[in-house]
């Protein structure tokens, strides 16, 4: 059995021997990152975390110096003004010393919280810092509120302390919508609480009254009990039920009808009638019915509200505030124009203007669109184009904001202010398309319109009829009609089902953000996909390894023969190099490289092999010494130019690493097309062919999707790459070479043919496309902007989640329809009885409650797998 990392529960790779003693037991660790975190946790006496946690932690990442540097920038006052509140505790000033009085406050989003124990761990760790006033971590929203004294501790130190225990913290600014949501949520809880507590009291008294009706309770006792319930129900009616009145007034003003209208009428009528009966001491009281009615409806409304605000919160978390910074060069000159000195100043990228000169160092993000004036480098434009391979750019080439500088220093002249950059334009395009989103009208809204009209008309007709025949009973019968036909079950039908379905999907790693998703999803009959990062992982994997034999090696090889250490290997040369061995050697060398291709070797790493004298040749390859042999790995063209390699080696073995991708012809000898070549003492020993790996579940997922719907591939990559994909995955149509606008057009075209389209993607270039689709699905690993524009986020990065989503949404639709059927059926039976005067208000309430409970129970079925 492979030992698992105690910290993150991932298998420990071979050759790694790290451990930390936790509670007197040596626990295995899978990497230096995890070890460092576990050690920090132990040193701080927080090992309780491991006993209490319910989920394993995320894999530890070693701290990157650049990240720390960027955190330091957050201490700058210019940047802090965006997210920090300066607070002072004036009231408490007397007890505390003056220096404690003033502190700064900020909200942080924290990545990597997997269970409630994490919140405890972070609070404990941060609380120890000197100068920290207070920290409160919310495990549900994955945010923390910190208060600190700026003269004693810097924000970057706090962020560092959080990173030391394996979480990533970044400042965050809550938007207005969210602040008002929070207030509303508190008000809702208060209303529900007060209605619930008082309802119980009123129910208790009502029982006294019910029994009093059968036994001979004296009249003055009854009067007393009625008055008590009257007083107790006042807060429910005037405070608890308030949202219904507001809702009713709003819709009536808009000349429409909603469930709130009959609800408000029923509450007000029943309460005033009961109050009148109490005061005049004649007639019946129904305080218990009104309060229970209000309480149940409030719960339904709250559930709906909570589902909505939670989705808003998660999407807000995605918009982390990492202020982009830029190093601007200011040239100070004399009056006659001669340059005195150049100064480098750090400013926020927002403040950059046209024609400013900025320096961009390796690994930094380009702050604005511009043209390179000095230097050359490789830039990763994955976030714009989805293409992972860096592009080499030199003087006079354009660079775009948001792309990442590779390994060279470049000086760039800004040609557009950051608000007009290509990136901001993409974001704006995506926002615009969101507002034009095609919508399928909500079923519940349509039903409510007609249903409410029917209820109101029936009640009026009933009132008029009984007014003619039995004036003294007319009021109570009308009230019974209103209460009995109360759309309580009806109004619970959708929100309860949606809440349960959303919870169920959340557990499966699918985040629902758009409110319409569950209703629209079953109607979708065309699925469009992006290629890189969606159908494929966006990471390179080794597809094929060619091993080369050098038959005449020990006789005519002057290069290798000159090295003494090589002697034992000269005989039977190739037999020593198996596929595994070459991969391990390559991995040992590539571990030093930051190039995207290097990552693909990591899984083959054998930690028993270590490379010495490693030299990374930027953009070319890596050389190094392992066990005394000089190895080099890199592009064929580079190695060829550098060393007199054996030009005509014979391939001894070709092996495919991943069988599913075995489309390349065996015996392929054109090593020029290999992505990299490994040489040992200047002899080619292996050639590696890499491909963008197709996600494991792509095939299965699309096979299932194809049964019921069209599938489309929309890619920015060239047509050849798309055609290659179509051979491996069953997809109906593949279109390559599309820009974001083209993709949008393709989706709109499909919609004109009557298709309901769902788009799945991950890159920034997909975000405008999302607006055009009926349902947009983003991969969890995608760009933040993409995720914030999407309706659904697949947090687990599994394409198969789409099938789960379809299944659950179909079941949800079924449950909602069942709920409606029951609510209508019940009303259809009870309405004639109530109109005929056979039902008293309290029987109506019991019936209503029973039907509500039935609806809730039915919805709960959705929680099951």
């Amino acid at each position, binding site marked *: 059995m492979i030992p698992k990392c105690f910290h993150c529960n991932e298998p420990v790779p071979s050759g790694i021997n790290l451990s930390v003693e936790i509670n*007197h*037991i040596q626990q295995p660790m899978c990497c230096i990152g995890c070890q460092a975190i576990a050690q920090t946790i132990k040193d701080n006496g927080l090992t*309780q975390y491991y*006993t209490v946690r319910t989920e394993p932690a995320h894999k530890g990442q070693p701290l990157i110096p650049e990240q720390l540097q960027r955190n330091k920038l957050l201490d700058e006052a210019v940047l802090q003004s965006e997210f920090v509140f300066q607070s002072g505790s004036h009231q408490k000033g007397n007890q505390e010393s003056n220096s404690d009085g003033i502190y700064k406050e900020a909200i942080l989003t924290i990545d990597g919280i997997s269970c409630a124990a994490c919140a405890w761990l972070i609070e404990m760790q941060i609380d120890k810092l000197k100068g920290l006033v207070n920290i409160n971590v919310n495990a549900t929203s994955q945010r923390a509120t910190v208060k600190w004294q700026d003269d004693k501790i810097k924000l970057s130190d706090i962020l560092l302390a959080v990173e030391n225990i394996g979480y990533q913290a970044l400042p965050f600014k809550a938007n207005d919508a969210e602040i008002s949501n929070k207030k509303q949520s508190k008000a809702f809880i208060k209303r529900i609480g007060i209605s619930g507590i008082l309802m119980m009291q009123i129910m208790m008294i009502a029982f006294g009254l019910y029994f009093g009706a059968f036994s001979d309770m004296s009249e003055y006792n009854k009067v007393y009990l009625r008055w008590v319930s009257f007083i107790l129900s006042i807060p429910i009616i005037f405070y608890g039920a308030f949202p219904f009145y507001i809702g009713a007034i709003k819709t009536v003003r808009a000349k429409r009808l909603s469930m709130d209208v009959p609800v408000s009428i029923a509450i007000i009528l029943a309460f005033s009638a009961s109050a009148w009966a109490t005061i005049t001491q004649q007639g019946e009281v129904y305080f218990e019915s009104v309060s229970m009615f209000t309480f149940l409806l409030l719960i339904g409304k709250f559930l709906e509200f909570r589902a909505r605000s939670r989705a808003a919160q998660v999407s807000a978390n995605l918009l982390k505030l990492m202020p982009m910074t830029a190093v601007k060069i200011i040239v100070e000159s004399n009056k006659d124009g001669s340059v005195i000195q150049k100064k480098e100043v750090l400013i926020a990228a927002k403040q950059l203007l046209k024609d400013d000169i900025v320096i961009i160092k390796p690994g930094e993000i380009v702050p604005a669109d511009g043209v390179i004036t000095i230097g050359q480098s490789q830039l990763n434009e994955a976030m714009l184009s989805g293409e992972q391979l860096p592009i080499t750019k030199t003087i006079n080439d354009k660079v775009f904001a948001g792309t990442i500088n590779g390994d060279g220093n470049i000086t760039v002249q800004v040609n557009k202010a950051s608000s007009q950059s290509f990136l901001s334009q993409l974001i704006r395009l995506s926002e615009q398309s969101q507002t034009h989103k095609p919508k399928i009208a909500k079923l519940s809204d349509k039903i409510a319109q007609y249903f409410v009209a029917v209820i109101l008309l029936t009640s009026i007709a009933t009132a008029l009829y009984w007014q003619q025949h039995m004036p003294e009973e007319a009021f109570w019968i009308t009230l019974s009609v209103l209460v009995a036909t109360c759309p309580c079950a009806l109004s619970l039908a959708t929100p309860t089902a949606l809440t349960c379905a959303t919870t169920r999907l959340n557990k499966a790693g699918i985040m629902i953000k758009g409110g319409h998703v569950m209703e629209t999803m079953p109607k979708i009959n065309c699925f469009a996909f992006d290629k890189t990062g969606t159908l494929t992982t966006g990471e390179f994997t080794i597809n094929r390894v060619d091993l080369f034999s050098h038959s005449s090696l020990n006789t005519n090889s002057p290069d290798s023969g000159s090295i003494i250490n090589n002697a034992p290997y000269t005989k039977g040369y190739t037999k020593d190099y198996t596929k595994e061995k070459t991969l391990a050697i390559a991995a040992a060398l590539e571990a030093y490289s930051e190039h995207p291709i290097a990552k693909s070797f990591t899984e083959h790493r054998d930690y028993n092999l270590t490379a010495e004298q490693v030299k990374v040749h930027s953009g070319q390859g890596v050389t190094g010494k392992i066990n005394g042999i000089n190895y080099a790995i890199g592009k064929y063209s580079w190695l060829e130019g550098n060393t007199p390699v054996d030009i005509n080696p014979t391939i001894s073995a070709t092996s495919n690493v991943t069988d599913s991708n075995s489309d390349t012809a065996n015996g392929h000898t054109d090593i020029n097309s290999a992505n990299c070549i490994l040489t040992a003492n200047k002899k080619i020993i292996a050639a590696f062919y890499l491909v963008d790996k197709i996600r494991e579940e792509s095939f299965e997922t699309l096979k299932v999707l194809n049964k019921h719907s069209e599938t489309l591939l929309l890619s920015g990559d060239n047509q050849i790459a798309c055609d290659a994909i179509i051979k491996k995955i069953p997809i109906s149509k593949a279109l390559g070479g599309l820009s974001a606008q083209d993709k949008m057009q393709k989706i709109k075209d499909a919609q004109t043919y009557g298709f309901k389209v769902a788009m799945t993607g991950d890159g920034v270039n997909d975000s405008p496309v999302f607006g055009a689709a009926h349902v947009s699905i983003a991969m969890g690993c995608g760009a933040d902007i993409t995720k914030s524009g999407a309706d659904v986020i697949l947090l687990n990065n599994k394409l198969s989640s789409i099938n789960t989503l379809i299944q659950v949404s179909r079941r949800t639709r079924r449950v909602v329809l069942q709920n409606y059927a029951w609510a209508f059926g019940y009303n259809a039976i009870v309405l004639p009885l109530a109109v005929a005067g056979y039902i008293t208000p309290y029987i109506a309430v019991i019936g209503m409650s029973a039907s509500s409970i039935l609806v809730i129970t039915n919805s709960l079925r959705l929680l099951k797998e």
Partner: protein
Amino acid sequence: MSIIYILIPIAILLTSLGVYLFFWAVKTEQFDDLEKQGMSILFNDEKPNEMTKEVIEDTENKSGTP
């Protein structure tokens, strides 16, 4: 029956106390994060005394994998 003239006002007083406490709990954001608060009982106080520490370690040694 006259007992209800005393008991019900007492009940109302207790109810209003309950409502007050509930509002206080909402105001101090105790309902914001139900997950964390539910878990908090499982953690010892900041400085666990030796007794509880040993108990935890004991149970761990028993249940932990060798």
